[in-house]
């Protein structure tokens, strides 16, 4: 099974930073309605810092270590997590489409998010390099078409 590229951790750290900043700013703005906004500033800052430290030191490395995927001839397997372990198997023949997308954060690290769609559901691989994304897409779509013709 293959791990995600290590640069995805940088993307996640930036994502965390922007989410924290955004939510703290919103709560701070809202807290201007209260009389004692300095107190609230302290509370928000410390909660934000705590969440940030927790995610940075524990969650991001944890997610990285345990997010794996593998593409075989007849199925795609995706594995996530350790404390709560989730393994999914999708037969290639059931795959309708493979979508690749890239937001600004992923773009800064030259990474892509791959989304494998079956009829009505989708499974994502959080980040892969450009060459990997093309390879996955081509491989899966070719195998998918072969499998469908074979049935």
């Amino acid at each position, binding site marked *: 099974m293959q791990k995600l590229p290590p640069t995805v951790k940088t993307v996640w750290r930036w994502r965390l930073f922007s989410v924290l900043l955004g939510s703290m700013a919103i709560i701070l703005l809202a807290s201007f309605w209260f009389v004692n906004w300095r107190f609230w500033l302290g509370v928000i800052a410390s909660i934000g810092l705590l969440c940030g430290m927790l995610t940075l030191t524990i969650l991001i490395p944890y997610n990285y270590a345990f997010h794996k995927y593998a593409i075989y001839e*007849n*199925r795609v*397997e995706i594995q996530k997590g*350790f*404390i*709560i*372990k*989730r*393994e*999914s*198997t*999708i*037969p290639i023949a*059931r795959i*309708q489409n493979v979508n690749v997308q890239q937001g600004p954060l992923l773009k800064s690290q030259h990474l892509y998010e791959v989304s494998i769609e*079956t*009829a*009505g*559901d989708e*499974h994502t691989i959080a980040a892969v390099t450009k060459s990997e994304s093309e390879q996955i897409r081509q491989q899966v779509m070719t195998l998918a078409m072969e499998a*469908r013709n074979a*049935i």
Partner: protein
Amino acid sequence: MQYRHLHPLSIFIFLRYSIFGGVIPLIFVGGIGGSLIFLIMLCYAVFYFWNFKYAVTADQIWIQRGVIIKKQEHIPLKRLQTIHHQQSLWLQPFKLETLKLATASKHGFQIKLAFVPQSVGKLVEEHYHAALQQTVAPVNETNTVATSDGSNDLSTPLSVETVADYRINVRDMNLFAATSFRILLFVALFPRYTINILNTFKVYVWPILFHWTGHGAIFVTVLLTFLIAFVVSYLSLWIQYYNFHLTRQEGYLIFSHGLFNHDTIKIREHRIQGVVLERNMIREWLGLFSVKLIMISDENGHSIKSQPVILPVIRKAEWLNFQSQFLPWIPVNNPQMSAPRQRSGWLFFRNAALLLILIASVLTYWWLQYWRLIAIALILGLPLALGNALYKQKRTRVGLTGSTTDAFLYLQTSRYLISRTIVVNWHQIQSIRFQQSVWMNKSHLAHLTINIRSGESEVKVEMRYLDASVAKRVYTWYRQFQ
């Protein structure tokens, strides 16, 4: 092309749709402005009606609709998968019906022809069968389902003769109507109506009742609420499944039922993705269950509750015979179902209890003055949660009819004292997810989520707290390939 318009009564249908969009301005504007908006919507409905044209030819259905942007749709009759005739009681004198047609397209392409003459409905059926009798249909559909008797071959002409016929006997129908959980729906969701009835009761009857029975009048009132709800639910089920009739033609199932709204639905067998056998606690005790189908490209779709029922009630003893006649592709022998684990019963209870305690705490925090009431509700709720957990534990089981990809997977789960067994083939499963936390690893348990294609998306069947080796066996079975 010789086209037709829908019946003018359909203007009301179009008006209803535009009212849903325009009801807000009506409420706020009111008066002259409101009436003006209503007039505009009426005009639009009339224009839409005038611009809705359709034609049924020997090999296709042609529809043109739209006021500003005109849209044309051509549907080859050969690609139809479902033909649904719906006739309300008040349309019978006009001899009109509503036709809903679905093809195998990925987006569950639905054509709805409201208020067409019944003769048109018959014409569609005739041309449909004629079209199928002709040349070979192209087998390039991406959603072909491999059924165990290989009936996904569309090249063989399908005959119109009835292969099997089934009607429910009155006694079973009575039991079915009397044992539904729908009564709870009427008691809980429509308190307005029961309260109105009770108010009448309170004003006229209560003084007399109190005079006779004293404080027992409260008990009688509660009893009467349930009685009224029971009668309403009983009648509503009888009306919904009145004159239920199921027939099977080669490759099709046709079922019809209903008193005020008569429905006739014809479905293509190879669209069936799975079968659900459903029974609540009372019906299980009586040996009855309902049979539902999970289908591709259907009007409903996301939950098992909303699947079209093919059979509202059948006796357990009759099931084998029925299955061989109507669902011959299901294996005859039921597999050995896995043994439930004691620990899962405790975990179901623990999860429910934690949720109840959380809700109780939040409610107490908000409404501290009602803490006694909340505490009583909690004390009553916990034994119910325990009962539900034990019921659920005994009915969370899986079974496999074989070890190849021809095998069928039987999944039994339960939710709120309604137990369901889902029968699905390897090819009809879209994906499986195996889930296990570190604590579940220690107690050798696992969750399994099976995705089955349904409607435009899918149905997720969650098997929780299964024995880990059983779950692993199913997961490994799914990961094998020919």
